[in-house]
């Protein structure tokens, strides 16, 4: 039996008590689920309070993330974007977590957080621009508290801790959410971050997208712990495993973690059990290391289908609205990509700018030398 199956059989074996984090103490092997695969409510007692309006907004964001992601992958195939990490299948984790936060809260992402970027106000055009290979894709509108895309695994978790530390220092009520993968839990930085955050009660939500693979390496070989959530226990903080393809479960857990952190009670580790439906990046071939039956299994757990069925049952959604929303998302993606593609290549001065606040003689000389070469070349 895989660790995943074991957890599944033990799930909901024990009655819940008191608060969410007590009820889903990772050592009890339970996973928070509110919607089942058919969009039926199975965890009604944990249902978050959400207006119809917010539910619809959330679903539209998930849909936009999906459409924008599929477009990015097809643009990459046409050579108009460079290597990128698809987020197909992880929309409930991204949107369900980010949407619980306030404007003043902070987000510290890795590189696969399309839905969360969009929710937090990062323009889609900037995301496209980043994957078109420009640093300007990391420049967000004022007030958007999102750190730039972080490529080295898990190192960003410590920045989240630092921001959390500063929040406490200033007696603010803000919280920080940071995202990483199951693979990321193996790096030393993950452990150092959890430890520091717990010792100093930093208001940080550690959100693990357990999408089952770190490139080709399966979760079961990344860590032998039954869950990732249980790692929280060793550091002295609450941990919770949620169905990461269930928007409502992700929402509920993150909301609870945010109030925990905001109340000065320190960090929380959330493990969203999800699946990276596409390739690791556009240069990866997943058929080398996973079976198509597994992929089919997870297709049936698609977070969008589940949410859509739930909304339909509530009378909030139907075929026409779906079509309209898709068309709208497609138009937005097209428009934002067009904007990103307008961006011109950098000038010589630009590649030398921003190494330091003001330039240094070495850099000036190097820029001059490059310019003189280019002038010579033009004159040839």
């Amino acid at each position, binding site marked *: 039996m895989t660790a995943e199956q074991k957890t599944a059989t033990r799930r909901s074996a024990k009655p819940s008590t008191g608060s969410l984090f007590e009820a889903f103490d990772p050592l009890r092997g339970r996973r928070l689920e509110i919607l089942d695969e058919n969009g039926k409510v199975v965890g009604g007692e944990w249902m978050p309070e959400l207006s119809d309006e917010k539910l619809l907004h959330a679903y539209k964001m998930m849909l936009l993330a999906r459409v924008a992601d599929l477009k990015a992958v097809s643009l990459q195939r046409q050579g108009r974007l460079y*290597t990128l990490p698809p987020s197909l299948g992880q929309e409930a984790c991204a949107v369900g977590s980010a949407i619980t936060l306030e404007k003043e809260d902070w987000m510290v992402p890795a590189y696969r957080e399309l839905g969360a970027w969009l929710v937090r106000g990062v323009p889609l055009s900037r995301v496209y621009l980043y994957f078109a290979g420009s640093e300007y894709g990391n420049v967000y509108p004022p007030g958007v508290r999102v750190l730039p895309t972080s490529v*080295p695994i898990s190192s960003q978790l410590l920045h989240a801790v630092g921001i959390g530390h500063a929040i406490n220092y200033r007696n603010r009520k803000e919280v920080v959410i940071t995202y990483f993968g199951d693979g990321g839990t193996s790096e030393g930085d993950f452990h150092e971050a959890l430890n520091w955050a717990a010792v100093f009660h930093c208001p940080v939500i550690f959100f693990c997208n357990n999408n089952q693979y770190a490139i080709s390496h399966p979760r079961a070989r990344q860590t032998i712990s039954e869950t990732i959530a249980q790692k929280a226990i060793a550091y002295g903080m609450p941990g919770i495993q949620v169905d990461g393809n269930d928007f409502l479960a992700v929402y509920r857990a993150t909301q609870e973690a945010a109030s925990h952190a905001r109340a000065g009670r320190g960090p929380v580790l959330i493990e969203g059990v999800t699946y990276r439906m596409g390739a690791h990046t556009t240069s990866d071939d997943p058929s080398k290391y996973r079976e198509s039956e597994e992929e089919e299994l997870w297709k049936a757990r698609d977070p969008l289908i589940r949410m859509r069925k739930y909304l339909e049952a509530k009378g909030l959604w139907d075929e026409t609205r779906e079509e309209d929303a898709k068309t709208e998302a497609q138009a937005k993606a097209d428009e934002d990509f067009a904007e990103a593609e307008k961006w011109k290549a*950098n000038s010589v001065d630009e*590649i030398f700018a921003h190494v330091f606040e003001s330039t240094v003689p070495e850099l000036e000389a190097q820029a001059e030398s490059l310019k003189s070469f280019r002038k010579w*070349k033009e004159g040839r």
Partner: protein
Amino acid sequence: MAVMTLVQAVKSALDLKLADDENVIVFGEDVGVGGGVFRATEGLQKKYGAKRVFDTPLAESSIVGAAVGMAIAGLRPVVEIQFDGFMHPAFNQLVSHLARFRYRTRGERPMPVVVRFPNGDGVRALELHSDSLEAVYGHVPGLKVVMPSTPYDAKGLLISAIEENDPVLFLEPKRIYRAVKQDVPDGLYRIPIGKARVLQEGTNVTLVAYGAMIRVCQQAILEAKKDGISVELIDLRTIYPLDTATIVESVKKTGRLMVVHESPRSFGVAAEIIARVNEQAFYYLESPPRRLTGNDTIPPLPKSEDLYFFPPERVYYELKRAFEA
């Protein structure tokens, strides 16, 4: 003999050494089932089993740190780090332990470890995938640093590296992983570490380079030849220990020196080479030694890559100036 790319040559060296010595083991992220991000270990797990060739958890410090322990216990680990930029989490193990165990224990604990990783630009990659910090590694006492420029050299140098009792960082120029093909012998052969190679003889100027820059230089030399400039090209092959004698001998003959590398200029390999030539052949120089290097900026994302990294034309341009000076 078989025609091979540089990646295939790397795989061939690993394959032969795995077969040859049961103490050799190969591990890292995605090297087993996936065969490595550049496929340098493809098929080796199937052939030698998961005990000899395996995937590790995603943690570079543990990959290098565990290799240190394995070497102490008699194994010869050959580890892969996926990209140059991901060496940084392993830097502590590299500097604090790998490089100094032999010294620390007065020779009791040698470190037969090879750390392989891709190096340099040219594949339009994400951030941190284009770094080339070989000078940093060369600056760490106790590490040998090797960088091949051809499939033939890659195989022979890697076999030597695996057989070394000292830690070797084996930097693979990713831009030419698949760009060059060459006849490579099927069996084991060795190219000595610490020896440069004169690739082409010439009389007017000595050009020193290594890794992916060798091809760039070769193209530039063809153009310079039309202007009547005769270039002697030296492939360093090993960054540390640096083969000063071969360079100095050449400069004594040509009277001029230019060094080319794509990694940042300040405190780089070129600076070291020029310092040594000044120390040992100053009076033979007919003009000031020159260097063409990458800039002291962060390697830009792909949109600006072409601006940052120089083409053969730039080498030609600088060569002409070196010659005319």
